[in-house]
C-alpha cells in the first residue's frame, strides 16, 4: 500500500469549475444557496489545508501523544457539533462526548489489538478521523430522533411511568427506535456499497494507483470498523441521554422552553 501521487494546486483550482456550476444552478433556480456554497468551499479549503499540515507534522513527529491530542480535539468538536443537532435533548454534550470518546477508543483499540493496523500515526490519524466523524453523525441522528420521540410520546411515557415503570422501562421503545435510526444509514450504505456508490477510501486508493484488491480489502476493514463504532456511539449516546429527560423520582421533566423552538 505504498502508493503516492502528486496533486498540484492548479488541479485543485480547476475542480472549482464544478463549484461554479453548483452556484450557477442555485442562482438560476433561485435555491438561494450561493452564499452557503461559497462558505463551504472556503471553509473546506482552509480546514483541510490546516489539517493536512497538522497531519504532516504529526507523521513527521511520529509520536502517539500528538495523535491522541488530535483525536481528542476531534471528539470535543464532534460532540459540540452533534449537540447542535440534538437541541431537544437536555445536556446532550456529555453523553455525546463520552459516546464519541468510547466509540473512537474502542474501535481503534480493537483494530490495533487484532493486528489489522500498526499503532502508528499513519494509520491511527485517518482511521480515527473517519471513526469519530461517522460516530458523530450516528449519535447526532440518534439523539435528534430521541428528542423528537420524547416530545411526541410524552403522554405514553407518563402513562407507562404511572403504572410504576422505571424511566428506563418507559423510555425503552423510544431509545430502541433512536438507536436504530442512528445506525441504519450506515447499515444501508454498507449494503449497497460497490453497487450504487464507491466509498471514499477505495476511490482514493484507486486514484493513487493502488491494486484494486488492496483498495477493496482496506475499504472492507474500514466499513466493518465503522459499523462497530457507529453502533457503540449510538448505544452510548442514547443510553446516557435518555436519563436527562427524567428526574431521580422517575418523573418526566417538563420540556425546556428553549428546546421547544
Amino acid at each position, binding site marked *: 500500500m505504498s502508493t503516492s501521487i502528486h496533486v498540484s494546486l492548479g488541479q485543485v483550482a480547476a475542480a472549482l469549475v464544478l463549484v461554479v456550476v453548483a452556484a450557477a444552478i442555485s442562482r438560476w433556480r433561485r435555491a438561494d444557496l450561493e452564499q452557503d456554497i461559497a462558505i463551504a468551499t472556503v471553509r473546506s479549503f482552509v480546514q483541510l489545508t490546516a489539517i493536512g499540515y497538522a497531519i504532516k507534522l504529526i507523521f513527521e513527529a511520529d509520536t502517539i501523544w500528538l495523535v491522541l491530542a488530535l483525536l481528542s480535539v476531534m471528539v470535543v468538536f464532534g460532540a459540540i457539533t452533534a449537540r447542535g443537532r440534538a437541541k431537544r435533548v437536555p445536556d446532550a454534550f456529555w453523553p455525546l462526548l463520552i459516546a464519541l470518546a468510547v466509540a473512537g477508543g474502542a474501535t481503534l483499540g480493537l483494530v490495533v489489538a487484532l493486528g489489522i493496523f500498526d499503532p502508528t500515526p499513519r494509520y491511527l490519524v485517518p482511521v480515527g478521523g473517519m471513526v469519530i466523524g461517522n460516530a458523530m453523525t450516528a449519535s447526532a441522528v440518534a439523539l435528534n430522533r430521541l428528542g423528537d420521540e420524547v416530545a411526541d410520546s410524552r*403522554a*405514553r411515557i*407518563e*402513562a*407507562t*411511568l*404511572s*403504572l*410504576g*415503570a*422505571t424511566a428506563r*422501562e418507559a423510555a425503552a*421503545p423510544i431509545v430502541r427506535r433512536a438507536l436504530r435510526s442512528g445506525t441504519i444509514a450506515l447499515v444501508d450504505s454498507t449494503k449497497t456499497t460497490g453497487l450504487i456508490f464507491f466509498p471514499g477510501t477505495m476511490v482514493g486508493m484507486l486514484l493513487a494507483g493502488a491494486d484494486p484488491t488492496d483498495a477493496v480489502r482496506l475499504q472492507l476493514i474500514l466499513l466493518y470498523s465503522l459499523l462497530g463504532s457507529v453502533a457503540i456511539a449510538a448505544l452510548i449516546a442514547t443510553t446516557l441521554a435518555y436519563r436527562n429527560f427524567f428526574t431521580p*423520582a*422517575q*418523573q*418526566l421533566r*417538563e420540556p425546556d*422552553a428553549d428546546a421547544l423552538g
Partner: protein
Amino acid sequence: MLFEIRDVSFSRGGRRVLDAIEAGVPAGAAAIVGPSGSGKSTLLRLLNRLADPERGTISYRGSPLVDYDPLKLRREVALVPQLPALLEGTVRSNLSYAAELAGKELDADRCLALAGLDAGFGERDVGRLSVGEQQRTMLARALAQQPRVLLLDEPTASLDASARDAVEATLAQLRRELDISLVLVTHDPEQARRLGDWALRLEEGRAVAAGALEEALA
C-alpha cells in the same frame, strides 16, 4: 384521610397552575371538579407523583408522598389519564405488562369484565380500538395492578352519552365489588354528583370549596 394536601402550589411555563391548595381527601369516592384549565389534571398528576409541587406537601395515608418509593406508590395509586396512551401490542399484552410491574397475578378476563369489556377483547390490537375502547382498556390495565386507589382523569370526556353511562356504571360497580377508593377529575358537576360522595372545587388553580358533595358543589 387518603390524601392531605397542604398549601400546594405548582407552576408550568411560568404560569401558576395550582395556588396554595388545602384539602383533605377522604377514602371513598372523591371528585375534583372545575372548568377546563382550573388545575384538576395537574393536581391528579401530583397525587401520582408524576410531578412534585413547588411548594407545600401532599401526604398519602399519613406519610408524605416523597417518603414513598415512587414506583411502589404508582402501583398502589393508579392513574388513568384523560387521553388513552397504551403500549403497542394487544390489549392482553398491556394488561400483563401492568400486572407484571405490580408483581400481581393477572386475571385478564376479570379486569376486562370490570372495565366493561368482553373476554375476547384481550387479543385485539390496541391500534384498532376506538377511543372509548382504549379508555376502557386503560381502566382494565390499571385494575390489573390491583391498586388501592384509582385516579381517574375525565374518564368519560371523549365518550357519547350511552358510552358515558356505561363507564359510570362500571365505576359504580367497581366501588361495590372492590375495596378501592376513587379520585375522579371531572368538569361536570352532575357526574361528580352521580359518582362521588366528597368534592373539591377548583377555579383558576385555587380551591374554592371542599367537603361533602352537596356542600362543596352548592
